[in-house]
């Protein structure tokens, strides 16, 4: 079944220059494998469309049941150069909550 990412994870976003970073943290340790399977760089880049002009990297933190996503060239030049109101990507973590993922009902254990 399709659900929103928010059902199994919470997020926090920030910036490093023109790169937006989004931390994705599983609500429960048992949801971490779902994140690994469903929150792929390709899907994240696709979700944000033309906003992300570069690639997406994904790093894994199994100790925290979390992923760190880096969205390259996503902030209009970043920092003081950017004309975006959200030049620091503070709302992008919230945006990602709406991304749809595929799960089996039995995987949702709470």
């Amino acid at each position, binding site marked *: 079944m399709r659900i929103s990412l928010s059902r199994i994870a919470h997020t*926090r976003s920030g910036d490093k220059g023109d790169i937006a970073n989004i931390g994705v943290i599983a609500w429960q340790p048992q949801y971490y494998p779902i994140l690994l399977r469903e929150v792929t760089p390709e899907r994240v880049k696709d979700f944000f469309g033309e906003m992300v002009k570069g690639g997406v990297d994904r*790093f894994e933190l199994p*100790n*925290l049941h*979390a992923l760190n996503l880096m969205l390259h060239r996503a902030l209009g030049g970043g920092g*003081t150069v950017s004309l975006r109101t959200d030049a620091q990507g503070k709302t992008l973590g919230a945006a990602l909550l709406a991304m749809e993922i595929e799960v089996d009902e039995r995987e949702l254990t709470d």
Partner: protein
Amino acid sequence: MIRIANGQGFWGDWLEAPVRLVDGGPIDYLTLDYLAEVTMSILQKQRQQDPELGYARDFPPLIGRIAKKLRERNIKVVANAGGVNPVACARAVLKAAPGLKVAVVLGDDVLGRIDEFLGKGYEMRNIDTREPLSTIRDRILSANAYIGAFPLAEALATGADVVISGRCADAALVVAPMIHRFGWGPEDYDKLAAGIVAGHIIECGAQCSGGNCQVDWQNIPDPANIGYPIVEAEPDGSFAVTKHPGTGGRIDSHGVKEQLLYEIGDPRQYMTPDCVVDFTSLHLEDTGPDRVRGCGVRGGPRPAMLKASISFHAGWKASGTLVYSWPNALEKARVADRITRQRLDQLGLRFDEIYTEYFGVNACHGPAARRVDDPPEVQVRIGVRGADKRAVDRFTREMIPLVLTGPPGGTGYGEGRPEVRQIVAYWPALIPRDEIHTRVEVVE
């Protein structure tokens, strides 16, 4: 065990926080972070106009306000409020709080050594774009190396009550007391790494204690009185993150994880002046109400190069807004944008970029935004940037006329003509560690 509290995550953070940390319970050290990436350029400009300026001017009055409590409770302060003039900052602190002992850490400022470095063949390429520094040589406004925690620890060892540095790694403010009290050496990589993780958790202040926290945010207790975080650090590198009893906010592993992942790149190799940190080695657990413990952190040798933060003039920018209401709010906003661009074009004005956003529709989330049909109101924001200041200035006069010359019912122009602002951009580069010589001075 020592208690290190961070009272400020950035210059502009909540003014009450450091005072409440000092009043609200026992702490040993109070750290304060004043330097965003491009703050140094503002301070350099100030110093150019007046040799007694170039530091964070609200720091001395803050110390004046809490000096009595600092003395009574034997709390030491570590802050990067010195900017490009730590000595002047120290003198101002001594004036505001006579009787305190103040030490400064110098050596991070390399603005006067750029040509020397270029002459030695250091290209100082932009870490992100790979361009060499020579392309912007004549537009450089400030240049500072990120120094680590050891010079700050050295300053604490003088017995100073207040340690003032210029640019340093953010977490260095928090690690310095640990080095000083626990006697860690430059090769205690695991302990230094643990200190940096603890510092990273609290360096943004309340962002780990319930602020900007997505987890159950509606139920965070008493956010108006949010408690800023305190690290209880142990000699073996393990630590707890907590806050004063009776304060608002919430500290739990979910909120701390949000802050851990904030503004990091590859978590296995988080580079700092003192060591490389592996965030994937951290073991985190909730050990009580508003209490999270961290241990198990591994670190590796420090990099051979130090990161330098260089700022430079990158043109001018301005942005203006207008609001249109239902019906057809978005359509009116789009027409306003089209008219503005057409008028600018007819004037022959050229910009590096013109960027338009529609608030209430998709300004924050862009293509990922939830669809909105027929919004009650839309705010249109048009921004321009370019090298030609006069072009940017002319743009600032083009939006308000739309109220009388454009789509119906335009409002939200009450703030007046937008300001033209200088773009001070950030150029992260690497320089050899051996070129930076720090020194500590007690200021009297």
